């Protein structure tokens, strides 16, 4: 019942914040957001999962399963649980949300209680997404994330917020619909071999070759069509080229704390779901399609990096670099090696922390200068040394500086991809992807150099000075966590590996 309690507490906290008077809402929201954090840390102490929650022969931590809706032909069960893949992401969520809330204290001045209420509502839904083991329950939470995000961008965003919010909403909903149809078709194709929407059950049935034809498609064609539909649905979320165009707009227009969560957690929903659905359930299709998927991933890496190189807006740079980073994750996933998939999972967490940190740091600078244009804020290092220092550290983390989390993730992905037996000509893909690192280093250094150093020329009618403590504190926490994970990746990697091994065993020799 721990997971239910966690979700319920967060949800109630959201409601409580929603009706809190504006004056106290920031502090109350922060205090209440600590509850899920404490909860998830407490759960860590009792975390006893082994294996992958979707596959047989595993132990799922904190699992509960009761029937919810028993209609024919497929029952819907309330089925939640955690394994080595989902737990790190749960922790990531519960860690990032309090930090994001604190970083919102400065920029968010209007409709405060609504803002924090929505953030907490989103957190509750995110916890649901990462814990649900029934497709339907999962989908309910998956969609429930969109609504607060839509409003968060639309209400508190920048000048073009309405456009960005609608774009985000339309993209992700169309994607969800396609994915949903694809998955339902898959379940129908399974016919009587499954009785519910339980993800383990469906996975099992698929692996047992129970998939039959449906709507005029043969089982192979159905699997392929469903895979593509599902992949498309998640690719929008990740995002992967060519369905990434909502992301820069959403990131640029969203207020900083929302960007933090968007890049830090929401993108990981996509990769998490890819891992769960495409690469676990339909691993054989994924293996067949390894080359195009890897190509997409690698292309995203290069393309995102190149675009980032051309940007003038710091936030846009970080946003495009996220596309690039997510490309690595795809490459890691498709490699079907322990280090590939495990590294990809680790990279999800690492990138969540690092991109969150970058957005937060940019946000702190923006709070002070009200601009993010690279040219405008040159020399900001003089005025805000601590913030800039952390921003540089984060950039190095992005580039994969050893002893930081990014390095561990990327290194493992490259290692895994290089060794891949599933992906033909894996070394070539890996090499191209590694070239992406060079571009990342290039654009980040270039941007830092132009941005941070030199003469401070910005003319303002107020004094640009050091950021307040509550702006900077989350930065410290995050950089600390990044270094901690970089120094000792086994904090998460052990459990990730535990959950990833069975997948690799499935697909490794395919």
């Amino acid at each position, binding site marked *: 019942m721990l997971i239910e309690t966690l979700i319920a507490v967060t949800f109630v906290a959201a409601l409580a914040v929603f009706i809190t008077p504006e004056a106290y809402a920031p502090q109350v929201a922060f205090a209440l957001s600590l509850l899920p954090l404490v909860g998830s840390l407490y759960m860590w102490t009792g975390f006893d999962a082994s294996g992958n929650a979707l596959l047989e022969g595993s132990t799922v931590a904190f699992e509960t399963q009761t029937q*919810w809706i028993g209609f024919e032909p497929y029952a819907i069960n309330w089925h939640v649980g955690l394994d080595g893949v989902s737990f790190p992401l749960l922790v990531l969520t519960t860690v990032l949300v309090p930090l994001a809330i604190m970083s919102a204290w400065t920029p968010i001045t209007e409709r405060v209680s*609504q803002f924090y209420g929505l953030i907490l509502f989103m957190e509750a839904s995110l916890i649901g997404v990462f814990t649900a083991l029934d497709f339907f329950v999962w989908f*309910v939470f998956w*969609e429930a994330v969109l609504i607060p995000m839509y409003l968060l961008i639309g*209400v508190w965003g920048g000048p073009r917020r309405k456009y960005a*919010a609608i774009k985000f909403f339309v993209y992700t*909903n169309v994607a969800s619909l396609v994915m949903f149809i694809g998955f339902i078709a898959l379940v*129908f194709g399974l016919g009587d071999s499954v009785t519910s929407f339980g993800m383990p059950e469906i996975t099992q049935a698929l692996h047992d070759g129970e998939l039959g034809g449906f709507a005029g498609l043969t089982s192979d064609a159905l699997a392929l069509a469903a895979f593509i539909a599902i992949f498309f649905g998640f690719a929008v979320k990740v995002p992967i080229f060519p369905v990434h165009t909502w992301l820069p707009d959403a990131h640029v227009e969203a207020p900083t704390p929302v960007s933090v969560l968007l890049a830090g957690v929401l993108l990981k929903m996509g990769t998490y779901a890819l891992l769960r659905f495409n690469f676990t359930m339909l691993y054989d299709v994924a293996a067949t399609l390894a080359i195009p998927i890897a190509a997409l991933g690698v292309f995203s890496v290069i393309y995102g990096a190149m675009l980032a190189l051309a940007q003038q807006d710091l936030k846009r740079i970080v946003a495009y670099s996220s596309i690039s980073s997510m490309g690595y994750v795809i490459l890691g996933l498709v490699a079907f090696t322990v280090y590939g998939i495990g590294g990809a999972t680790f990279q999800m967490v690492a990138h969540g922390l690092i991109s969150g940190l970058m957005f937060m740091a940019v946000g702190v600078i923006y709070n002070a200068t009200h601009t993010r244009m690279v040219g405008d804020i040159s020399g900001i290092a003089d005025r805000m040394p601590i913030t800039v220092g952390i921003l540089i550290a984060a950039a190095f983390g992005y580039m994969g500086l050893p002893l930081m989390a990014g390095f561990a993730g990327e290194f493992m992905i490259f290692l895994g991809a290089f060794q891949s037996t599933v992906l033909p000509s894996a070394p070539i893909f890996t090499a191209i992807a590694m070239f992406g690192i060079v571009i990342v280093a290039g654009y980040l250094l270039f941007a830092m150099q132009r941005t941070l150093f030199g003469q401070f020329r910005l003319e303002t009618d107020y004094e640009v000075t050091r950021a307040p403590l509550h702006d900077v504190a989350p930065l410290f926490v995050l950089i600390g966590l990044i270094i901690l994970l970089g120094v000792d990746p086994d904090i998460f990697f052990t459990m990730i590996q535990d959950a990833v091994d069975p997948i690799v065993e499935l697909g490794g020799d395919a």
Partner: protein
Amino acid sequence: MLSQLPQPLVTQPSTWIALAPVVILATTAFLLFIADSIDPKGSNNGPLAAFSLVGILGTLGVTVWYFFAGVGQPEGLSLLADQVVVDGMSLFFTFVVTSVAALVVVGSYDYLHDQPHQGEFYSLIVLATTGMALMANANSLITAFIAIELASLSSFALVAFLKHNRGSVEAGLKYFLIGALSSAILVYGISLVYATTGSLQLDAVAAGVAETDNVGLLGVGVLMIVGGVAYKTASVPFHFWAPEAYEGAPAPVSAFLSSASKAAGFVIAFRVFVEAFPLDVVVALGIDWVLIFQVLAVVTMIVGNFAAAMQENVKRMLAYSSVGHAGYVLIGLAALGGGQDSLVMGAAMMHLLVYGFMNTGAFLFVALAEYRGIGRTFEDYNGMWRQAPIASVAMTVFLFSLAGLPIGGGFLSKYVLFTAAVGAGVWWLAAVGALTSALSLFYYSRLVKAIWIEDPIREFDVARQPVGLYVAIIAAGLMTVALLPAFPVVDLAQTAAASLLA
């Protein structure tokens, strides 16, 4: 001369006890009418609303009690010489209709506070509810027609209730004209069915259909009955009245018509077509009404949703969206005969239940806006959250649930409907439904955007707090959300549908 006078069914107490929901409603309407006669000029808004609510809630209670006590299940109780029947389906729909009516009455309390003729208003609302509840019980074309007319005639008056408001009067006129026309068509269709089968009681009609040799006449009759039903459910091509009537009518009345009236129209459709024109018989004769409904469903979904997407007026958008939802529910008829009959019909019933709450809530929110003197277009709703934050949250829930996002019961009911259609082999119906749902998200989210994201174009002074409207909206919102986890009641709908189909 009167050797075979029927047994005194009318006065058997058990008959009236079984029909208690309808009887309570009718009595309430009657007493309201009397109360209004006693004090026609006075303003007794509170007591009148309270009394109506008591009557409706009483009905609701009795209905729920009967439902769970198993009255008329699985075999329906045929009463009054088989003219009415009490079974799971009738109780289910009585529940839908009365819950909508309860919300509407609560919402009307504020809407009416400065209007004359409150007594008539409540009386008509309850009377229309009676008609709709009777529609759920109708087991013969006579009862069906009378019940339809009882509901319609009351509705005509309700739509034109604001008699100094040109919009309301115009809406009433158009609703009335098309209503009169379609009831004429319906009754002519019934007369043709009678001509070919010699009966109007549904089972007897079914028996007559099997023996008839005048298929052409019967076919025309069935087609005309489809037309009458399409009008009542606001399905294309008889939907023209809906946007006009809903836009012009007082918003609580729009809520009532678009939710309860539609549900009642569908129960007639379900019962009449399943009972009186059994598929295995009529298809052999060449009267494939499922095909008609398939065409209607596709056209209705497409026309309703596309038209809704093009509206600038919120009420009109909701009106067209309600046309679109009629299209979804039509799948419940259009997918029959595919081996999943009870599933699809149960799903359609379930969608009507959920729709009853979310759509009523949405229209009541519009009522709140009208009450506050806010304009009609999307722009006028900008920044609405400032005036009614809680209601705006509820409205967001309604809209997303209507679109089929998993924030309310609308998601599950649509899901069951579409998957059932797929299971019945008409996957293209489900595909059209899914695509139009995706489209609907566009125009629903436009309103969400206006309410939450846009800045208000002008300021409003908030004078009187409409407690009743708030209560109704919040209740509808709670029910919409609660129907997501509490969706297992779908089993009840399916049991009811299964017993009808058996």
